């Protein structure tokens, strides 16, 4: 009976020690979690962050409200100027080509007329010479 009582007491002590150990471990963990929470308080946002965000949002809204034809106006004007320059340059080039062609054709026609004159002149010269011979 005494032996059983002693064994029972040992078991009780072991259980109590284990419970105390568990309790201590969970208390230590809770303490550590408290420490962690304290260390992990939110940091202050950098100065000016809010102002930069609000300015960015305002700019985005302004851009969205702008009529489509005003969006990127500078780029549109630049692109239009480039297109006008290309088209204008091509038109000037074509006009020059046309003028040169006309000039060439004019030259050819003049050459032909001059050749015809020369032939006529020569023929008339020969006719004149024969007439002069026959009248002599």
């Amino acid at each position, binding site marked *: 009976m005494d032996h059983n009582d002693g064994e029972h007491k040992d078991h009780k002590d072991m259980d109590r020690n284990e419970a105390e150990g568990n309790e201590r471990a969970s208390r230590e*963990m809770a303490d*550590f*979690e408290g*420490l*962690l*929470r*304290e*260390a*992990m*308080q*939110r*940091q*202050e*946002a*950098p100065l000016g*962050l*809010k102002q*930069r*965000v*609000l300015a*960015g*949002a305002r700019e*985005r809204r302004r851009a969205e409200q702008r009529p489509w034809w005003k969006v990127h106006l500078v780029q549109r004007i630049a692109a239009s100027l480039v297109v006008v320059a290309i088209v204008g340059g091509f038109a000037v080039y074509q006009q020059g080509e046309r003028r040169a062609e006309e000039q060439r054709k004019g030259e050819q026609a003049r050459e032909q007329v001059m050749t015809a004159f020369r032939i006529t002149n020569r023929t008339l010269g020969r006719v004149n010479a024969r007439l002069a011979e026959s009248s002599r």
Partner: protein
Amino acid sequence: MGETLNWQPDFEQLVGEHQSMVFSLAWRMTGDRGLAEEIAQDVLLELDRHLPHLGSANHARYWLRQAALHRSIDALRRRRRNAASLGTDVWDELEELHGVVEMDRESPLGVRLEQLIAALPDAQRAAIVLRYQEEMTPDEIAIMVRAPVATVKSNLQRGLKQLRARAEQTLKEFVRGS
């Protein structure tokens, strides 16, 4: 439901209310103050675009936390890829950054904890930051990181165990030193 229907969001007020949360989350996740500031600015500007799709103040807070977390993880991945291509160790760099930024804080243990958190693997760090900075439950964290609750709990336990072991070491060194 009533809150959802009657919610009239004020962007300026939302930014003022949540900027420190978004910035802190990004900073603790990346360990880089400059990068965290960039992420916070992008996330808050994105909020302005998303505002019409958010139905309540809680929804906005949830959206901000999720956006800040995912942007931070993306930024870390990009940085790791760059570091790998350059042959440098990102964690050494992170530790250095935390060390420099936090030197003027009052508690040396707090500083050390920040450094230890920065050195945890991404999933554990995200779980710890959301749990102890944002006071979210494991269920809420699981929804946010799209992982099973059991995985989140396991990440929390492992992270805590590592932190505690290393923090105790620091505490002993600190006590011996003082």
